[in-house]
């Protein structure tokens, strides 16, 4: 009883919905939940600003999609896509949330029985002061984030059950790597 999440594919929206655009991941997850295009068997969660506390909800899935606000030092509303393997080497810091989705991903690598395929999709936030609504730029970019999430989920659905032996996919996107390096004046990850 009381298994947390039975789905093979889990989407977690993270962010603080009290801090305007910081909550964009949660807003996107809520939209995704009611989107008729959502493939069957996907679980969607509102992760708020939780960190390691999300392990129980995330560790049994073989595919994880995080929706988040990502500071890539680009113009507000710009979409960034990264994979778990790209994030494994870097601890916290560059992500908008102090929780460090990167730290969560590292912890998942330690507790999960099998390697997980992890993708992070995020929008560059504009305004992150106290407030419960998104800024106009982010509000208008939200459908693009939802579409990107759906296309990720659609691709996974086409590939079939990740547990049936297919190789974990490793994606790399030079552009997002470059952005990340550009973000970090100290040269660490």
């Amino acid at each position, binding site marked *: *009883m*009381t298994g*947390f*999440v039975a789905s093979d594919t889990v989407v977690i929206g993270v962010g*603080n*919905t*009290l*801090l305007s655009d*910081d909550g964009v991941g949660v807003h996107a997850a809520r939209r995704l939940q009611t989107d008729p295009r959502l493939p069957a068997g996907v679980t969607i*969660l*509102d*992760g*708020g*600003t*939780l*960190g*390691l*506390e*999300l*392990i*129980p*909800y995330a*560790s049994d899935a073989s595919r994880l999609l995080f929706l988040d606000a990502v*500071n890539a*030092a680009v113009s507000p509303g710009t979409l960034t896509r990264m994979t778990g393997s790209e994030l*494994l*080497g*870097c*601890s*916290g*810091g*560059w992500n*908008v*949330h*102090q*929780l*460090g989705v*990167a*730290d969560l991903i*590292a*912890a998942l*690598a*330690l*507790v999960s029985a099998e390697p997980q395929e992890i993708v992070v999709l995020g929008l560059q*936030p504009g305004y*992150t*002061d*106290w*407030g*419960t609504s998104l800024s106009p730029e982010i509000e208008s970019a939200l459908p693009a984030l939802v579409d990107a999430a759906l296309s990720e989920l659609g691709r996974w659905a086409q590939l079939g059950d990740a547990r049936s032996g297919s190789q974990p996919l490793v994606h790399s996107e030079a552009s997002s790597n470059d952005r990340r390096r550009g*973000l*970090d*004046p*100290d040269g*660490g*990850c």
Partner: protein
Amino acid sequence: MARIVVDPVTRIEGHLRIEAQVDGGVITDAWSSGTMFRGIELILRGRDPREAWIWAQRICGVCTMVHALASVNAVEAALDIEVPDNARLIRNIIAATQTIQDHVVHFYHLHALDWVDVVSALKADPAKTSQLAQSISDWPTSSTKYFKGVQDRVSALVANRQLSLFGSGYWGHPGYRLPPEANLMAVAHYLEALVFQKEFIRIHAVLGGKNPHLQTFLVGGMATSLDPDEPGATVNLERIDFLLQVARTAAGFVSQVYIPDVLAVAGFYRDWFERGEGLGNFMSYGAYPQGSIKSPANFFLPQGIILNRDLSKVYPVDPENVAEYIAHSWYAYSSGDQMARHPYEGETKPNYTGPKPPYEFLNVEQKYSWLKAPRYQDKSMEVGPLARLLVAYASGHTEVKKLVDSTLQSLKAPPTALFSTLGRIAARALETQLLANHLVEWIEQLANNMAKGNLLNHNGQKWDPSSWPDSARGFGFFEAPRGSLGHWVEIENQAIKNYQAVVPSTWNAGPRDAHGQRGAYEAALLKTPVADPDRPLEILRTIHSFDPCLACAVHVLDARGQIRAKASA
């Protein structure tokens, strides 16, 4: 003379900046700056007080439920609502679960690596590690093969540079003193604690709904459905059995892994019983009502204040005596920046006067933090597990006294050793043990109530806003894992007129007040030796011993990442 800057200080959470003045290898002064801009009242003004908790639980990243609880407590205090016994028990169970979870995660995942050198663990002899583990505990996972497996796994991750959680330590610093075998044992338990927390938090999933944010709080009680025989009820007999099983497993982990590890680590770092002592003033609002919340005298963890390290006296707490200064905080008060304001009269008008980033140092003579400086009767207070344990100890709490005395005896340390960095760590571990034991009791009491046919979980007498007075104010409080949490709500014409939260990390991490009195972090760093100003491990040890939670605090776009230390002439 050198000024050291550590920014940010937290390993996984937060954004906290410490500046410390080091003279002759010893800290002579310190300043703590947080980036929390507290604007919760901007969100809550005008809303229905019955839904305040839903918003309030988003204030903090790691302990969402404590804000939900403080919020419903505040509204219930304002409207004079008593919750039924079952709701009290469920709240105690949920809150104790949060605290146990938080303390375990803090010790292993946020603090242990200040004392445990992961790189040294790779050199350990697994057979000797097994002997060591078996000499201090009956915990079953302790074979040579097990420790060899852990060592291989961590080696592989380190070799692949894939272990970001382990990436921020000052490995090889002369301050690390554990032998390789103790390091390996601790690293193994670091991994076990990840699994522990994953299983333990299922208590919240049962009582709060299968969502990372609890859904079952309600002004007047809880929305958890109770029925011993109904399979669809949130709490039935089957679920009670499950809760008991999880709680007992947790108590076993705490007594067989967490406590022995803390004692083992402490044995190698005894000088840290004399460092980081701090203010000497401690406050606890009290927590875990055993009857009405209006009778703090009957709380499981008592309410009280200790001044100047004098354990012979416990002073009462009156929330009217709390006030916040902004003399060194980036705000402006309409009555002038030198006066303190009570939270009911709280104002949040930002007034940033600090240097333009990037900057080298803060101007600590002026305003230097986004945290306000809360004071009790104009005194700085330390809050948290050590404060709670000391207040209980000094109040003559039998169980706490026994536990503390026996621990001090096994460490061959006097009670004054508690006023220290290691004292905070030990107090947190002992509190975890106490709460794990009582968790089982509270679940059993809930089962007893249900067996007697008492299924009442909500008092709806004042649910209808037409039954409320035109205006009301209430103080809601709880001892969150990190310390005293207070919410102040003012209700007028059935809507929230003002709302203020004073969170534990403001008490501990706050800056100086108008009288120049230091906050708890600032005071605790004084006199601490720093061996290597480029790698100020000692500062991290003391600050982390408070369990800094600037998750409440921080949501800044900052890409700087790792702990940074900088020395200047």
